[in-house]
């Protein structure tokens, strides 16, 4: 499925974030000395460990657990006030190394990768026409056959594989496709109205809302109704695969992007 990407490639957020970390570490080393440098160096993996621990609790995806443990061992190894003896440090380092290999496996298998870009790419694949006509209204994407239990099970699958973040409401479930999944996992954001989301109500109706910021991530202004219909069809297809116990195919499809 090698096709040219339809999304813009710029991802300045990560570049700025990385630069910010480098600047903080450099400044702490230059202005405050070695001890503060190591404290700051350990504070970042500590935050990452907490984030992955909460993510593990929310998703039940053990990939987060491996990353969390790796960051915990990094903190134990480098935190200045924890002056372990040489033998303990060697054991900690060995554990960290094993966990680092585990982290590489987890990351390379895309087990905890957010699927934001893949989903937007897949939604745009069948759309060839480009006629701008954005509207913030929801697009009724048709109907699907499912029970309430099935759709709730589907949402659990989606969060476990960090494909979409679910909200189970009184009469429907909402699957949000955020660029940054952590803001939802860490309860930093409660409203999904400004993100792209797909809803499945308990009567079988499916609707799609694409956020303007996500629409603007495409290189072209794809015909908006076709893009919404395609995204709706993609999620209906995912649901059908889930119902047929072919969930692996969903992951394969996303990994193929």
């Amino acid at each position, binding site marked *: 499925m090698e096709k040219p990407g339809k999304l813009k490639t710029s991802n300045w957020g990560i570049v700025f974030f990385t630069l910010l970390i480098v600047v903080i570490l450099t400044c702490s080393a230059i202005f405050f000395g070695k001890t503060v440098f190591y404290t700051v160096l350990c504070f970042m993996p500590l935050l990452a460990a907490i984030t992955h621990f909460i993510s593990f609790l929310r998703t039940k995806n053990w990939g987060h657990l491996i990353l969390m443990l790796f960051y915990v061992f990094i903190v134990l190894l480098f935190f200045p006030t924890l002056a372990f003896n040489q033998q303990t440090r060697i054991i900690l380092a060995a554990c960290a190394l094993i966990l680092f290999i585990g982290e590489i496996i987890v990351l390379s298998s895309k087990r905890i990768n957010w699927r934001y870009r893949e989903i937007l790419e897949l939604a745009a694949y069948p759309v060839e026409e480009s*006629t*701008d*006509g954005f*509207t*913030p*209204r*929801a*697009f*009724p994407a048709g109907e699907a056959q499912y029970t309430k239990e099935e759709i709730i099970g589907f949402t659990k699958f989606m969060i476990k594989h960090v494909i979409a973040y679910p909200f189970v*409401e*009184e*009469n*429907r479930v909402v699957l949000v496709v955020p660029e940054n999944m952590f803001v939802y996992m860490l309860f930093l954001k409660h409203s999904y*109205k400004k993100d792209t989301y797909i*809803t499945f109500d308990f009567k079988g109706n499916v*609707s799609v*809302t694409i956020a303007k910021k996500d629409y603007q991530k495409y290189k072209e202004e794809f*015909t*908006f*109704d*076709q893009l*919404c219909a395609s995204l709706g069809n993609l999620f209906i297809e995912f649901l059908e695969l889930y119902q047929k116990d072919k969930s692996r195919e969903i992951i394969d499809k996303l990994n193929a992007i």
Partner: protein
Amino acid sequence: MDFKTASQLGSIISKDYAEDFFKLLVIYQDISASEAASRLNLHISTAQDFLEGLNSQDIVSKKEVLEKKRPYFRYSLKKKTLTITIDFVALYNKQDHQDRLKWKIREKKNSGAIFKKFRKSDYISAVHFFTGKGRTRIEKKINLTRNQGNFLLYLPFPTEPFLSVAEIIKKAKIEDSNIPEVLDIIDALLNHKIIEKR
């Protein structure tokens, strides 16, 4: 009785002095504007306008008489009761209704309207839009009924083919009795160039 006539009658009988004026018209066989004005302590032109208003609505009759070769009018009451009946249902043109169901519509491209969704639902609860330019630019908001919001959910996107109003109503599963309110919002949105018609 058509609404315009009813509102004119309403306007006449809502005057502060109307009750006293009608009492005079009952008491006197006929009366002139100057006699009524002096009796009710009104300006003669006020009394004249009031009587002319009643005459135009066929409540009083007027007769020209001469006094020392100077003509003037005397008014006498023609009706002993006044009934205002308005058929509110008749205000809505059903023929027009049928025509409008055939209109093909969709959302207008770059209309600038903001569609607010009802909490935990996809149907639209309000439409915000702007009128005027520069300093005179004003934000306006139309709150929608549930049926109107549901209709707008199924309104074709700016990039979709036009759909007839009847087809959208069918998709949105709106009952016949609620169609007039949907047609009303279509009119409003057409006026504000938020939807377009083919």
